[in-house]
């Protein structure tokens, strides 16, 4: 994976995904290794995302790399009207790898074509966020022992959630049985279902969360945003339907784990946090190991 940019989850093959997850496992055992001390990592956040940026910077710093960059475009030359092309060309001179977040879809692909160094996409608008997908895969594999043949439920906003779309795409490689639980207004788009159908995988769609819980190994929760509804009354009708309470997990399989890309608002009540099935905070920690694995392998320090 040396010098390879990661823009979309499908830029890496299934074997490369597996390798990243293995390396992430090694970094989890030994997260402080100064193997990147000769490298400069640039984190270019054209829109703020503190959580993702800190995770990358923590990953880079724990491996001994120097981190440069900006945290939002108001503090950079972008404010003065510089094109993305010029910013990327300039920054390429100062670093060995670029991690970027940008509000426009396709920005990371374009940057990867312009830059002289590899680019890791840390979110391009509503399009892709592949490091989130990899950390989700890592979390699923770690809690279930394998990615193969699992029953995975996605709950909430399945229409606009890019996290859901990329993870569904990636899981199509592992004979997953999908359970999609959402209000009718926020159903999974048919473009995402194409992948599932092409591989003849089984998927179920429903509006009933409680009904699905006993059937699945992973419960992947997402937030339903009010802005997504054209009629506020429709939002009021469903807003409490897709909230997970601790007692709802009573009938779950013992291996079930609850995932959430965070930040959570109210879709998982805090009484779930102390349940051993709650995994979302550990999931966020796993992001650091996955990002260490990506930085180290793309910079060519590990194979």
């Amino acid at each position, binding site marked *: 994976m040396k010098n390879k940019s990661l823009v979309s989850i499908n830029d890496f093959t299934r074997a490369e995904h597996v390798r990243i997850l293995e390396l992430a496992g090694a970094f989890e055992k030994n997260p402080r290794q100064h193997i990147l001390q000769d490298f400069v990592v640039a984190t270019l956040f054209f829109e703020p995302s503190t959580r993702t940026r800190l995770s990358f910077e923590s990953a880079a710093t724990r491996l001994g790399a120097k981190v440069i960059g900006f945290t939002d475009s108001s503090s950079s030359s972008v404010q003065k009207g510089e094109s993305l092309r010029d910013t990327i060309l300039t920054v390429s001179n100062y670093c060995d790898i670029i991690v970027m977040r940008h509000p426009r879809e396709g920005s990371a*692909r374009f940057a990867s074509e312009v830059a002289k160094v590899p680019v890791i996409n840390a979110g391009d608008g509503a399009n892709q966020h592949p490091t989130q997908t990899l950390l989700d895969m890592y979390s699923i594999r770690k809690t279930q022992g394998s990615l193969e043949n699992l029953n995975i439920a996605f709950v909430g906003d399945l229409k606009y959630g890019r996290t859901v779309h990329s993870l569904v795409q990636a899981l199509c490689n592992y004979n997953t049985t999908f359970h999609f639980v959402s209000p009718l207004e926020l159903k999974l788009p048919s473009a995402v279902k194409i992948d599932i159908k092409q591989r003849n995988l089984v998927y179920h769609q429903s509006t009933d969360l409680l009904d699905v819980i006993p059937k699945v190994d992973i419960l992947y929760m997402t937030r339903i945003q009010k802005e997504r509804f054209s009629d506020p009354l429709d939002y009021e009708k469903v807003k409490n339907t897709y909230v997970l309470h601790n007692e709802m997990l009573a009938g779950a399989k013992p291996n079930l784990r609850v995932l959430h890309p965070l930040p959570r608002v109210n879709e998982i009540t805090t009484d779930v946090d102390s349940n051993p099935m709650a995994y979302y905070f550990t999931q966020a920690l796993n992001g650091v190991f996955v990002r260490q694995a990506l930085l180290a392998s793309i910079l060519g320090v590990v194979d």
Partner: protein
Amino acid sequence: MEKEDLRKELKVSAIENGTVIDHIPSKNVFQVIKILNLSEYQNQLLIGTNLDSNKMGKKGIIKVSNKFFKSDEINKIALVAPTATLIIIKNFEVVEKKKVEVPDYAENIVKCFNPNCITNNEEIATKFTVIDKKELKLRCHYCEKITARNNISFR
């Protein structure tokens, strides 16, 4: 020459050698010229638009002297002129007639329908993979969204 014949002759003025692109939707004649870079063309070039057509009502036609297009070059116009027919002329004779075919890729012809796509916000050539030729569905190389027949527009 009779007046009627003369009129007809002027309308469809023949070329000795070259390519006639017929049955272009009238409104897209100038798109075709742009895609094929014909505004810079140094040889004889005849352009007709809003001509009467039995098949299409109104049509456009372009006659390009001394030019025989490669198929991947000419097929680019299928996106703006799917109805176009190509007539290859040698020594004033029609030697071949064919239809244009929708290409596998489209570079810098189509505009991405997604307003938040980077190609609509920076100076970037658009690139699309045609994922469905019949329904005309194109996947943007940058934002990965699908532009389809009902929301297609041209650069």
